C-alpha cells in the first residue's frame, strides 16, 4: 500500500518537475515585436496562473534581486550585434517585472551597470549609456502608466560618474516617481557594493564632522541605513543568470542572509518557469534562512546593548563624582543614553535623506534650465 502511494507520489512529482523544468528550457522562440516600454501589459496564461497560485500558497519573497547576465553571450549565440543583446535584455527586464507583479513581488532590484563595466570598449560603454538615456526618456513619457501601476523607480550608485545629461534624465525619472508606493524598481547603475559600503562609511563620517552623530553611534544598523538601498528591505532572493556563480560586487552587505540562486539560462532567454524555479528554491531555504537571520538580529541587538552600556559606563566615570551609582540609576542612565542616541541617529538620517533629495532636485532644475 505504501509502495503504491510512494509510486503515485513520485509520478506526480516527476511530471510536475518535468512541466516546470521543461518549460524553463524552451527558448522564447522567434522574437516578437516587443513594446519597448518599461511595463509589459498582459496577464499570465492558465498554466502560469495555476503555478503562480500554487507557489503563492507558500512563503513568497517580497524583494528579489537580479544579476541580468548573459546579454553578450546571447548576442553571439544568435549572431546579432552586441547592442541588440543589451536591448533584448532590457525587454526581458520589462517582462520579468510584469511576472513579479503577477506573483505579488513588489520590489525588484537589478544590476544594470557596474563601475567595473567602464573598463569595456568606449563603443560599448557609449552604447550602453545611450540605451540607458533612451530608456529613461521613455520612462518619463510613460508617467501616466507608471502612476497607474504605482511604480517607484530608484537608481542606486555613484551617479556623478555618469555623463551629465544621463544624470539629469535619471534625476527627473526618480523625482517624478518618488511618491509612488505600490511597487519598487531599484536600478543599480554605476554601482559596486564596495563603493556603496565605502560611501556609507563616508556619510557617517560626514555626520560626525557635522556634529550630528558621535563615532560611538556607528553600528551595523546605522551603516545599513546609510547605504544607497536604505529605503528598501534586504533582498530575500538573489538570482544570477548565465551560469556564473559569483556575486560580482552586487549587494554584498544586503544579501548576507538571502537565498542565492544561480541559473544557467542566459538573461534574454529568461522565462516565467525559470522565475518559478528560483522561487521554489527560496521556499525550500526559507526556514533555515529565517532562523539564521533571527539569530543574527539577536546578536546585533546584544552588541548594541553592550556598546550602549560601555558608553554609559564611560560617561558616568568622566562626569560622576567618584561614587558608584546604584543599579536603578545606572539603568535610568542607560535608557536615557539609548533614547538620546536614537534621536541623534534619526536627525542624522533625516539630514542625509535631505542631502540626497537636494542632489536630485538640483539636477532636475539644471535640466529644466538647460
Amino acid at each position, binding site marked *: 500500500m505504501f509502495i503504491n502511494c510512494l509510486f503515485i507520489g513520485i509520478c506526480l512529482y516527476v511530471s510536475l518537475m518535468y512541466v516546470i523544468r521543461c518549460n524553463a528550457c524552451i527558448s522564447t522562440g522567434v522574437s516578437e515585436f516587443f513594446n519597448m516600454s518599461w511595463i509589459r501589459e498582459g496577464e499570465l496564461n492558465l498554466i502560469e496562473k495555476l503555478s503562480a497560485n500554487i507557489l*503563492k500558497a507558500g512563503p513568497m519573497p517580497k524583494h528579489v534581486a537580479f544579476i541580468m547576465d548573459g546579454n553578450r553571450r546571447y548576442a553571439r549565440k544568435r549572431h546579432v550585434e552586441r547592442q541588440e543583446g543589451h536591448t533584448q535584455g532590457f525587454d526581458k527586464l520589462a517582462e520579468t517585472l510584469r511576472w513579479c507583479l503577477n506573483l505579488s513581488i513588489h520590489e525588484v532590484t537589478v544590476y544594470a551597470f557596474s563601475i567595473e563595466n567602464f573598463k569595456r570598449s568606449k563603443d560599448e560603454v557609449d552604447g550602453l549609456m545611450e540605451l540607458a538615456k533612451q530608456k529613461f526618456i521613455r520612462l518619463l513619457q510613460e508617467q501616466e502608466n507608471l502612476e497607474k501601476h504605482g511604480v517607484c523607480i530608484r537608481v542606486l550608485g555613484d551617479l556623478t560618474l555618469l555623463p551629465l545629461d544621463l544624470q539629469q534624465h535619471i534625476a527627473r525619472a526618480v523625482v517624478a516617481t518618488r511618491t509612488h508606493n505600490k511597487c519598487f524598481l531599484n536600478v543599480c547603475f554605476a554601482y559596486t557594493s564596495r563603493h556603496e*559600503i565605502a560611501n556609507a562609511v563616508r556619510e557617517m563620517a560626514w555626520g560626525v564632522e557635522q556634529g550630528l552623530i558621535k563615532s560611538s553611534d556607528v553600528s551595523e544598523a546605522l551603516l545599513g541605513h546609510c547605504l544607497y538601498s536604505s529605503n528598501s528591505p534586504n533582498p530575500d532572493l538573489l538570482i544570477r543568470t548565465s551560469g556564473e*556563480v559569483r556575486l560580482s560586487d552586487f549587494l554584498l552587505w544586503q544579501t*548576507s542572509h538571502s537565498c542565492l540562486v544561480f541559473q544557467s539560462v542566459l538573461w534574454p532567454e529568461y522565462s516565467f518557469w525559470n522565475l518559478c524555479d528560483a522561487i521554489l528554491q527560496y521556499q525550500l531555504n526559507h526556514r533555515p534562512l529565517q532562523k539564521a537571520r533571527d539569530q543574527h538580529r539577536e546578536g546585533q541587538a546584544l*552588541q548594541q546593548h553592550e556598546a550602549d552600556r560601555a558608553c554609559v559606563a564611560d560617561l558616568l566615570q568622566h562626569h560622576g563624582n567618584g561614587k558608584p551609582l546604584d543599579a536603578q540609576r545606572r539603568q535610568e542612565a542607560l535608557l536615557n543614553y539609548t533614547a538620546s542616541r536614537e534621536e541623534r541617529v534619526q536627525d542624522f538620517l533625516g539630514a542625509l535623506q535631505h542631502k540626497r533629495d537636494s542632489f536630485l532636485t538640483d539636477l532636475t532644475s539644471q535640466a529644466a534650465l538647460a
Partner: protein
Amino acid sequence: MAIVYEFVWQVLHVLLHIHRTLITWFRIRLRNWNGRLWSRALTALIVPMALSFPNQKNIVPAPGKRVGRRYRWGADGKSLEKLPDHIGLLIAEEEPRYTDIANLVVWCMAVGISYVSVYDNYGVFRRNNSRLMDEILKQQQELLDLEGSKQLCVEFLNNGTDKQDQQVLSCQSVLKVLSPDDGKLRIVQAAQQLCRAVEQRDKTSNDINVTVLDSLLRESKSTPDPDLVLKFGPVESTLGFLPWHIRLTEFISLPSHVGVSYEDLFSALQRYASCEQRLGK
C-alpha cells in the same frame, strides 16, 4: 480554492524533501557500494592503492603510500589550469564533523592552496578551534608523511601585525578560522575607527574611499580575497561569510561535508579551473 492550492503546495514540498533525501541516501550508498567493490578488488590483486574511500579509515596505510599520495595530490593541483590562492570552506550544516573538515583542510593544502579558511554560521569553529587544530594535526599524520605535516601553519584571523606576516612567510599554507564576527562586525569596527579619526580631526570624510577601507579590512597585506568558496549543506546562502571580501568569489555548492571525499573536492576545483572571470570587461 485557496485551500486546494495550499494542499498542492504542501504535497509539492513534501515530494521535494523526499527527492532530496533520496538523492543523499543514494549518494552515500553508491559510494559505500563502490568502496566495498574496490576493497575486494584491492585485496584480490594485492596492489597498493591510495586511500580514497571514507569507510576504509580503519586501514592505516604504510608510510610509502602516504608519500605517494602527497605527490599525487600535489601533481593534481599542478595539473589544473588555475588553482585558488585562497579557498573558503563554508559549513552550512547544523552539526560539524571535525574529522571531515580536517580532511578537507589537509587535502586543500596538499593540492597546493596557500590559504584555507573555515567558516560556520554559529561561530562553533572559532569557539572550538583547539579541537579543530588537534583533528587537523591527527589527519595530517594519517594522510600525509612527516615532510607534508611540517608544511602546515595555523594562524587565527585577528588584527594583523608584522610578526604574523613573518610567520606567514615561513609556512607553505595558512589556515584561518572564521566566524560571523569577521564579516559585518569587522566592517563596522573599521567604520568606527575611521569615524573616530574624523572626530579627532586626523582625517576628513572625503579621505574615506574603497582603498582606505580595504586596507583596514585586509588582515595582512599578503592575504588574498577568497577566490573560491565551497559551501557544504543544503542552505543556499553565504550566511554572513566575509561580505567585503567575496566580491569576485566563485561559489560551488556540495551537498554535505559529512563523508566528503578527495574526489568531491577535486571535481569542485576542476569546475573552478574552468570558469572565466571577465572582471567587468
